[in-house]
Every structure is written in C-alpha cells, then in structure tokens.
C-alpha cells in the first residue's frame, strides 16, 4: 500500500481544515478501506456505506487526532474495524455470503474479468466464514500488506500473538477454500 512520503504534513494540513489535504487523504486510502470492508460484509452497498462512515469519522476526528508516529492508515483501519464491530452487533456476525455486484475494473478481457471476479468471490466467501480476528489479520497482513507493528495497534494484540495467529488463520482459510471446491 502506498504511503505518502509527506503524510504527516498532509495530516497536519487536514487537521487545519485544508480541503485539498482531506481529499488527498481520502483518495489515498479509500480503496484500501473499501477493500478491507468489502471482504467482511456481504454486500457492496454495505461496504460503501461503511466506507463513507469511516471517512466522515475521519473528518470529525481529525481535530483531535494526535500523530504518534504510526501511519495514518492505521487509524483509519481502526475506525473501520470499530465500525464493523458496531455493524456486526446490530446485524449479527453472519458469515459473509458475498453478493456479486458490479465493480469497476481495468480489465478489458472479459474472460480475465470473469476469472478475477470469480477469484474474488471465492476469497470473500472463504474469508467471510473465518472468525473475525482471522479475517482482520489476513486482510490487514496479506491483502493490505501492513506490518505487524501497525496491526498490533489496530487489533490490540502483541506481535507474537499475531504471528501465531496468522498460521492458524492461513490454515483455516485453506480449509475453507478447499471446502468450496477446487484448489485451496
């Protein structure tokens, strides 16, 4: 995931109400947040709603945001994680049964597009059946590529615990993929 080299300055400007800085922060992180949410809720529309709420909370929370040396995205993922928790509490932690909806894609080959959508669908389905902390860890660590140092802060777990958990999570994911048929 790309991190702005001058993110601290950008965040500082955003805290002062600089619209351009806020918009840039949004554009920088919106896809990651949306993808993270999409893997954890059953529909695109819910993921879109939650994505919107994440960034509204970003705007509201910026004045009180204190830079503690962690990438800004860690805060956003934390916001997203808490929103998901709230969502689950209201709607239950039903396994994600993704509803395939239209996505924008750069693919021009229709066969390639179908294959990619199928892969995404299978991964969403498999990940959605995992325990919440497994989902969160796999998405943050391997899909978003966050280091343990950030994930520890987002998930409130030690790096050692995360390292141990990731093996269990990968094993569980492989089992879920296998249960869906085809190669895990």
């Amino acid at each position: 995931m790309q991190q702005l080299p001058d993110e601290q300055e950008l965040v500082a400007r955003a805290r002062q109400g600089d619209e351009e800085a806020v918009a840039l922060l949004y554009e920088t992180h919106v896809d990651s947040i949306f993808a993270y949410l999409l893997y954890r809720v059953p529909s695109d529309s819910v993921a879109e709603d939650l994505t919107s709420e994440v960034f509204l909370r970003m705007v509201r929370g910026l004045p009180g945001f204190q830079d503690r040396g962690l990438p800004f995205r860690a805060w956003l993922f934390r916001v997203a994680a808490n929103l998901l928790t709230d969502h689950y509490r209201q709607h239950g932690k039903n396994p994600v049964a993704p509803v395939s909806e239209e996505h924008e894609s750069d693919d021009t080959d229709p066969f390639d597009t179908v294959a990619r959508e199928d892969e995404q669908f299978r991964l969403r389905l498999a990940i959605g059946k995992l325990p919440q902390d497994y989902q969160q860890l796999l998405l943050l660590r391997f899909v978003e590529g966050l280091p343990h140092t950030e994930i520890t802060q987002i998930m409130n777990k030690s790096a050692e615990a995360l390292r141990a958990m990731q093996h269990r999570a990968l094993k569980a994911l492989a089992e879920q993929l296998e249960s869906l048929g085809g190669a895990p």
Partner: protein
Amino acid sequence: MMDDQFTPEELELIERLRAAPRPQLRSAVRDAIRQQIIHELRVPAAPVQRPFGNLLPLAPRMAAALAAVLAVGLLVLAIIQGANQSTATGGTPTTLPAPTNQVAVVPTETPELSAGSSTPTVSESRWPSSTPELASSMTEPTQATDTSTPPLMETVPATAETIIVVEGPVTDIVNNTLTIYGYQIEVEPQHPILAVIDIGDTVRVEGTLDSTGQVLASVIGNIPSTELVSGDTEATVSLDGPVEAIDDNLVTVNGIPVQIEPDDPILDTLEVGDFVSLQGNFEGTGSNIVLVVVNVTLVNNVIINGEPVCWYHVDAMGMGHWHCDGMGMGMGDDSMGMGE
C-alpha cells in the same frame, strides 16, 4: 513484510491473497463520498444556542447522495412515570425535590451506573447512525398515582436526525415549548402533560433533535424525583459514548463538553474515537455548561476474541443504549491512542 517463517503451502496462499483482485469503489460512489466529507468539513458542528456549547454537531449530511448511509430509525416508547408529583401532593412546584441537574447520556448496563440510578436524566446518542433500524416498542405499567397523566406511547418516524432523551428540571415553559438544560423542547400543543407540568418539575422527554437544535418531543412524562447516578460518588451525571474531540483536558463525548482533571492519567492515552464511561456533574463555565468528571473509564478497548465489544442496542422498551461486554473486567489500553 516477510519476517515470518511460512511453509510453502502458506506462502502459496499468501501470494494468492496478495494477488486477489482489488475491488474499487464505483466512481459515482467515490465522488459522492468525497463531496460528503468535504461538505462535512465545510459545515462542522451546528451553531450552538444552548448551554452545552458544542453539543451535537448536526452538520446536515448529504443523505441524498448516499441515501443508504445514515438512515436511523428509532421508535421511542414512553412510560409516564407517575403523575406530576406536585399535582399529586397538592403542592406547588417549589415543594418538589430540588432539581439535581442529573443527566445521563446513553445509559449503560454497568452495575455502577444502574445501581441506585433509576432515573438517568439526559440521554443522547449520535451513534450508531450507519444502518437503518426500527426499534420495537412496548408499554410497561406505569406507576399509578391519583393524578397520573395518561401513559402515552408515541413514535417517531425513522429519520436521520439525532435521537435524544432528556430528563431534568423544567426551567421554562412558553406555550408548548419547555426548556430543560437549555434545550428547547417542543411538545404537541394538545399534549396533556402541558396541563399539569410546572417549572421545577422533573420530566423525561424523548424525541428528535432537529437541525436548529430544538427537540421535537415524541414522548414526554414527568418523573417524581432523581437520584444520584452513582451512590458512592457525588456524580449526578452518567455519560457513555465516543470521544469526538480532545483539547487538553477538555474532551467532547457524544457531543457534550467534558472536563477531565488535567493530571488524570487517562489523558495520556485517550484519543478521539475511544469509548469512555464517565460520571460527573454539570457545571457552568461562562455561557457554557461543562460536564466535570468525577470518574472516567476507558472502555472501548475491551477486546474479546479480537473484537471490541461495545455496541449500541435498542432494548424491548425501545430505548437505545450502549452495552459493553467485559465492562468492569479490566479495560484494555489503547497504546495507539487512536480509539475508533
């Protein structure tokens, strides 16, 4: 990133996750959200004309652009808790128990908050607002007194407006508008309670807060008295909610300015987005009222199975409140201090 030892099978799966197709927001949605956050930036907290200072930022949101985002529905049920006590006893408003300025925002299920606190007095919540929801309503027996106002059960259509519950002493009555804690509360002109209520009475109001800061009451009833929120403290106010802003030791929680002791260690870790449970008292500071904290606890970092376990919930009485599993069982610390 690869500072861990993985088996070949794990590495293959990791590579598959990395290569997973990356969904992107539809352009229209992306643009709508961008406009929404810019609008939020330009139109911050609503103008304040009540003593809670920056209470309840009500920036109109671009709900039309994202209609599904913030629909909130809360059907509210009221129980008229007995009659106007002054009427019941034949006394005057001055014979009523002194108003205690007791305010509880978003009552919780924690024992320390519920014990001895039958009548928390102001509840409000802006959270959650991301999902449409209708709460069921039911009636419960009211405390019968000889001049009871007929129990009412009224509902509020689901809207994106803030649902607010206020309990406290009436400080002014002008026609069908009451003032409680500086809130202007509009009651139906024909509402029977208007015939029995007096300044000084403690009432409970549930309704919606419109964009002008006025509460449109859907349920109103008088309550006989108030009690301290927490028996072993001098707190008259209980407030649970998310931290929305921090300015030194002045914290905004659920839209209410809260003053924490400057040397309180919680300030070292407290961050916007954290969920806190606190008790205190409202005190006037100039033209504003600030909730001066007696006790504050960080609760949003309680982690069970990797997930914080605070959630908003509407109970069978149609009353919403926050609930946190593990409250009082040792609160986690947010070393990132980022809350949310």
